């Protein structure tokens, strides 16, 4: 039996802390994930993402603090809390001697699903993750991508209201990645998805909420749009007419000497600048473009990508 606290939050961490000796893997994490959101959890390697997942799922014990999923405290070590969520670890592993459907059947039994419902759900999830044809094959013969798909299947089998996905697309090929991302996006408003990924483009594509973790500390959390708009004015894109790529490259060299420029990258006809002093840039940039006599197709103050925000925040 577990105590449930009614809440509009799918996940809540309160001062969640974990030390490994003197190393603060997670430092007083206070995080709230609204119900129905797709929440991207970002951080460099060793930032504490997986530690957070493990603390949330009860696989690791916090040094201090508490966490709830779906109103159920998961940091008390009560196995019944496992009913509240589905979890896909970073590297899912399975009993190689089992067949795909057999593993899911075992998982279904652990969630006390009646036989008929198990049978029906197994067919549905195997179809959802594209493993219906391989259901009767031994897992030992599965590829990395197939195991990743089976990992997703075991996480969603019992239809949890909260899904914790640690790098869900890491072993998938590009087509598989898009399929899985589309499927996650389709869950919006029905199931809360808390996912970590190194592929920031994926997070930007599907997540409506984002949190950035750096050296065990939460440095940013909120709606993706508001975070991006917060940083919207320090990126400029300059596009030139076809054939002016070399002129643009020379112009980039001139720009690199400007004190208000933080960084610049060029991809064919487009130069993308990150500005450190916006006021100075507004005064000087247009004049420099005119002076360089560049055939401009577009000059636009754009919002940065999530990757740029992430890199800036986690420096």
């Amino acid at each position: 039996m577990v105590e449930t606290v009614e809440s509009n939050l799918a996940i809540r961490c309160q001062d969640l802390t974990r030390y490994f000796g003197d190393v603060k893997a997670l430092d007083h994490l206070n995080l709230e994930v609204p119900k129905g959101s797709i929440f991207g959890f970002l951080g460099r390697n060793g930032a504490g993402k997986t530690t957070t997942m493990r603390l949330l799922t009860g696989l690791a014990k916090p040094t201090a603090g508490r966490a709830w999923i779906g109103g159920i405290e998961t940091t008390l070590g009560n196995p019944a809390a496992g009913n509240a969520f589905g979890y896909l670890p970073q590297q899912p592993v399975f009993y190689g001697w089992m067949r795909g459907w057999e593993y899911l059947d075992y998982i279904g039994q652990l969630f006390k699903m009646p036989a008929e419902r198990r049978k029906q759900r197994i067919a549905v999830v195997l179809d959802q993750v594209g493993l219906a044809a391989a259901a009767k094959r031994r897992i030992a013969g599965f590829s990395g991508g197939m195991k990743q798909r089976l990992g997703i299947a075991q996480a969603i089998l019992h239809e949890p209201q909260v899904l914790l996905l640690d790098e869900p697309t890491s072993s998938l090929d590009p087509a598989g990645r898009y399929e899985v991302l589309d499927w996650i996006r389709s869950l919006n408003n029905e199931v809360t998805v808390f996912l970590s990924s190194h592929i920031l483009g994926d997070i930007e594509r599907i997540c409506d909420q984002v949190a950035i973790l750096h050296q065990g500390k939460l440095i940013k959390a909120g709606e993706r749009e508001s975070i991006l708009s917060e940083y919207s004015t320090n990126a400029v894109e300059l596009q030139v007419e076809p054939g002016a790529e070399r002129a643009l490259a020379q112009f980039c060299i001139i720009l690199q000497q400007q004190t208000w420029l933080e960084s610049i990258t060029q991809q064919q006809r487009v130069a993308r600048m990150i500005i450190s002093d916006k006021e100075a840039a507004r005064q000087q940039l247009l004049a420099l473009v005119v002076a360089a006599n560049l055939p401009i197709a577009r000059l636009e103050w754009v919002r940065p990508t999530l990757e740029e925000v992430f890199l800036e925040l986690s420096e």
Partner: protein
Amino acid sequence: MHAFFYILSILFSILLPVILAILLRRRFRVSWLLFAIGSLTFIASQVVHLPLNHLLTKIGVIPAGMDSGWMIAQAAIVMGLTAGICEEFARFAGYSLLKKARQVEDGLMLGLGHGGIEAMIFIGILMAGSVAQLFAMREMDLLSLNLGPEQLQYLQQQLNFMDQSALMGLVPFLERFIAMILHVVLSLMVLHAFQQNNRIWIVWAILYHALVDAIVVVLTLNNFDTLLIELGLLVSVLPGILWAFKVYGKQLKANQQPRLVIEWGLFAVAIRKELKQLWRTKMVLVIVGVFALFGMASPLLAYFMPQIFSSIEGAEMFKDLIPEPSTVDAMGQYLKNISQFGFLIAVLVGMGSVASEKEKGLTEMILHKPLPRWAFILSKFSAQALVFLAAFLIAEILAYIYILVLFEPISFGLFTIMNGILFLWLICFTAITILGSTVSRSVGAAAGISLAGSVILMLSVQIPRYGSLSPQALMGWAGMLASELNFNLQTSNFAALGAAIVFIIMSLIWAVGLFEQQEL
């Protein structure tokens, strides 16, 4: 009827501490590790306590004879104090190890472990052995035993106990139950020292322990009636119970949590999966095959031994030295095969059962789901035990058929008892291997720990004076059955039987307790 109540007493003494711990855990989520540490505090305290009392007797601080009231009082005070000092300091060390265990329920669990293992050892092991011997001696002429007059008198006193009501068989359990309550109270007193940061409570615990023990010693040495002694014990424990309720009653109520469901269904699911795994990975075939081979080959080897020698060039002369093979030789060969290879099979089957799943990350995949960790560990033990049981059955049937065909017939019941003893002996190695596999994170380390544990277990039979209380002594009992071809209560070793059961239970409690603390 006497036997029935004694068996009941033994069973209660072994099972009640575990049942109480399960109930406590359901209400307070308290870890099994506390029970395990509690048991360790008792054993550690006795490692000092017993030699200390021996030394104090040797130098005369504890009087050897109890001729006067002063001598009895001196013995009672000194023995009470040594018990108090050794056991309370052991409890103090236990709490020092468990830095987070500062709640009232932690104290209760530690006390249950301490008092529980004492009850298991005193009644489940020592009394089981001695009562069996008393039953054997009931029909004997004591004068034929070649004992001194004092020993004879003591033995007669013990036997007279059998003439009382059969219900008196429950008295040892009753005594241990009250003692268990005392241990819980004492554990709470030592806990109070940590909670209040005041060491004086350890002194109070020592003095209270000494007082209760002294009262019992005085009543016993003055030959009071058994029930009066137990009443004296109960009365002396009552103030402690009142103190515990006064200090911890409210805390206990406040710390209660919704009752934890015992997931028997999930345990059954986990056992089914383990059995399937043993079957699919061909473990069942290997185990059953090897045991079937033992069953068939042992009588055959015994029967054909003279022919084997006569067929070896240069060894023909030994043929005549070998006596004509008999049922005893076949049974001996069977026993030898099982004892030499059985434990190795148990270690090989069990060593990777937990460690390899941790190593591969399978525990991370499974144990965030609602499967309790105790069910995960116990399902592995249960499945392996079931496969060994099936293997023993097949080995027994095959061996019995071959013995019937090649030798004189023997009692199937006797052979089954011998196999039952061997099975229990083997399961001790399964339990220690599961513990070894739980402690380590790699299969290699698990193999090392399990083998070392198994070797220690086998060598424990050589410990002077205490060797016959080792689970390994079951092999000696099985050997007696094989050579005598008769069940004889006098040559039985129920102490070893009890020791094996307690060993298995405690190994599994340690495994579950440690596994609960591990991060996956």
